């Protein structure tokens, strides 16, 4: 088979993180090459290098045997590379035809700045019929189902004569029957000689379509194998196997008193998204919630914290039935929440460290609404010291601090508020190794003081590294629970992936 693409020794660093080191992948005409790895293994980064979104620091890229030095998005498209991201790049208010031919619309032969609608729709029809799709060119994209939108993306790629097609989690939002349709199209594309890089967490679906598999872990290349020469078990082992030493503070065995229930979620449901029953958090424990992206972990946290709406909400906090209708209620019940994306909804970046730390606790430092500046300074100073927040001063703006120190500001917020239950949502995302260690230490110290710590994470090592107990989420419900002694990466993954 003809080789379409070869990426060799690709390296890519971001400030503080080595995202890719020495990664290889090659794609042949007519094959489906599955690219596998945990969240954060570097799959998306690698594909963004291929798309020309990121510039590689090192390594070589050959397309159809020719070395390409400076790949940018335009060149990448011209060379026949097409990427279908999880978040589609479609314009919902434009028609299918307009989307497929955006910026390449056929023009009127006389007035060459006027779009020839008839030609546009006819060409679209041709492409759609090649894919055996029953979609009308004039339909607005917003009126299509997710699966149909995906087909439009594929049609768009084909219309650009894509020879290398990258699909990032294409089945994540599809129903069983839609997946069957997608696979039909994929098989046809393979027959036409298109090379496909396929990223997915659903290992079981590879059986039907995959030819080869490449596995990444922590930004490193692990191996490439023929799919039929390997087993799902071997793949999982290659995805997770690693040593955890030194990355985490040593684990101390705790005696969790299971009669002291801090949080008891009897029933919590939200239409189609969440269906949770019997979730307990004990005093002084670190409870890890593992799941793949989209499993509903953050949604659970946001409903629990009163941010998002739900249908049923039967929750007891320290034995008392809790009515949580807003974050204010949640905070009054002793909850604290470190959001997944601290820049988006965790910090007021344009305001000072002191403002941010004191924000939830102004009632403690103000009398009749007037802030005692001395108290404000003292509390900020106290937490800057206690958490070793590295900042030139408390009046520094939050945006000028590093990711790890920003994370500590948010932790300080909830410490100051004296929260009894703190939800850490991806607490170490995007912060460097040293800061990660400090965040773990803080979480452990909190648990020792009797705080109930919930840690939502997509990183198995950290789940195993510091959790006392782990629950696993998939499709909005809890699918498994493991005690400390039972924690093994493979068993956790097998609950999370199906």
């Amino acid at each position, binding site marked *: 088979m003809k080789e379409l693409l070869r990426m060799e020794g690709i390296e890519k660093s971001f400030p503080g993180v080595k995202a890719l080191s020495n990664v290889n992948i090659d794609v042949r005409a007519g094959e489906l090459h599955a690219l596998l790895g945990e969240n954060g293994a570097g799959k998306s980064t690698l594909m963004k290098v291929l798309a020309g979104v990121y510039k590689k620091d090192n390594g070589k890229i050959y397309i159809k045997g020719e070395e390409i030095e400076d790949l940018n998005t335009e060149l990448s498209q011209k060379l026949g590379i097409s990427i279908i991201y999880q978040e589609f790049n479609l314009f919902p208010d434009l028609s299918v035809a307009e989307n497929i031919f955006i910026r390449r619309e056929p023009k009127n032969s006389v007035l060459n700045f006027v779009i020839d609608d008839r030609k546009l729709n006819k060409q679209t029809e041709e492409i759609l019929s090649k894919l055996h799709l029953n979609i009308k060119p004039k339909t607005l994209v917003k009126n299509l189902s997710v699966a149909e939108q995906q087909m439009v993306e594929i049609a768009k790629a084909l219309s650009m004569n894509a020879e290398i097609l990258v699909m990032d989690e294409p089945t994540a939002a599809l129903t069983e029957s839609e997946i069957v349709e997608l696979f039909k199209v994929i098989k046809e594309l393979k027959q036409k000689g298109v090379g496909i890089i396929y990223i997915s967490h659903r290992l079981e679906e590879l059986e039907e379509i995959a030819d080869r598999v490449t596995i990444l872990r922590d930004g490193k290349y692990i191996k490439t194998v023929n799919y039929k020469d390997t087993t799902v078990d071997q793949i999982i082992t290659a995805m997770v196997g690693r040593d955890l030493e030194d990355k985490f503070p040593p684990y101390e065995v705790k005696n969790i008193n299971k009669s002291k229930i801090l949080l008891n979620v009897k029933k919590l449901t939200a239409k189609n998204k969440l269906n949770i029953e019997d979730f307990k958090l004990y005093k002084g424990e670190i409870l890890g919630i593992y799941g793949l992206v989209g499993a509903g972990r953050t949604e659970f946290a946001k409903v629990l914290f009163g941010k998002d709406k739900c249908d049923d909400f039967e929750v007891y906090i320290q034995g008392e039935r809790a009515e949580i209708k807003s*974050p204010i209620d949640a905070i009054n019940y002793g909850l604290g929440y470190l959001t997944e994306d601290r820049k988006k*909804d965790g910090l007021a970046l344009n305001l000072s460290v002191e403002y941010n730390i004191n*924000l939830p606790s102004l009632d403690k430092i103000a009398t009749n609404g007037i802030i005692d500046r001395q108290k404000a300074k003292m509390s900020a100073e106290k937490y800057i010291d206690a958490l070793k927040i590295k900042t030139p001063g408390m009046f520094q703006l939050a945006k000028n601090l590093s990711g790890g120190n920003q994370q500590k500001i948010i932790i300080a917020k909830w410490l100051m508020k004296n929260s009894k239950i703190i939800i850490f949502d991806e607490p170490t995302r995007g912060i460097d190794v040293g800061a990660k260690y400090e965040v773990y230490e803080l979480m452990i110290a909190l648990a020792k003081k009797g705080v109930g710590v919930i840690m939502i994470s997509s990183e198995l090592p950290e789940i195993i590294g510091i959790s006392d107990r782990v629950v696993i989420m998939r499709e909005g419900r809890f699918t498994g629970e493991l005690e400390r002694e039972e924690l093994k990466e493979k068993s956790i993954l097998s609950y999370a992936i199906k």
Partner: protein
Amino acid sequence: MIIGAITGIKEMKSKLNITNLLNELGVLLGLISMGVLFSIFSKHFFTVNNLLTIALQTSIIAILAMGVTYVIITSGIDLSVGSILAVSGVVTGKALLAGLPIWLSILLGIGMGGLCGLINGVIISNFKIAPFIVTLGMMSIARGAANVITGAMPVSGLPQQFAFVGGGRIGIVPVPVIIMFTLAAILGYVLKRTSFGRYIYCLGSNEEAALLSGVNVKKTKIGVYVISGLMAGLAGVIMTSRLVSAQSAAGLGYELDAIAAAIIGGCSPLGGAGKIRETIIGAFIIGTMRNGLNLLSINAFWQQIAIGAIIIIAVYIDTVRRRKES
């Protein structure tokens, strides 16, 4: 290495202080240089009388602008203040004609403003409609209400004592100027030193984060629109008193001057930044320019053009500064 780090931090601090100082002075420098220029070109400019005139002419815009500042810091906008000014003035005028005591008539006028602001705030925070739209609607509603109440006829024949609020002086200082500076002190204090003030900044800087930190976002939003309405109401009372007549066409287009003053003073339309002190300076820049250009007998149409240009330049400078910061 440690010493290096310490001097590094020190250098950073002193550098920060200089840029801070320039930033702080930025708008004031603009005002001062404008004053110097006008003093050179007109000998009538730098006199006690003229400066007091400028202050008096600026006071109404400044009072509106302070309320608008609160709103803009939350990343909102209030287009209705000019119309609220009119309806409040009309309410006060009618109340006075009906024989109500002066203090009560004034309170009714201010209260009318507060009510309009309350409606703005409640709709914006409960129905999640963009502030631009809601206050645009209120701009029309309040103006219409003023017209309905008066039949578009001036309300005159107001009692002489009432003229003190807008036309009186304490010593040589006009009463509206005193009101303006007193309010500036109070509103500045509230913004800087109270929980409510902090919530306003946090809300403007990151609404999601504020919500998840337990800030009562709804209440805070309603609060700023009420304050903006109250300020507009008070401005309406002062204006009515100064003219000793209430007119439904009063304050036409003033919302733009008020917003301009806040923006020139450094309020970011993106929210999270702005100070009362600087808004006052922004209002004075507009007032001073009008006065100076008048003294130089440059016609009012050119003044419009100049103010427009200054707004754009001020925002451009702000944008450049922000880009440098990040």
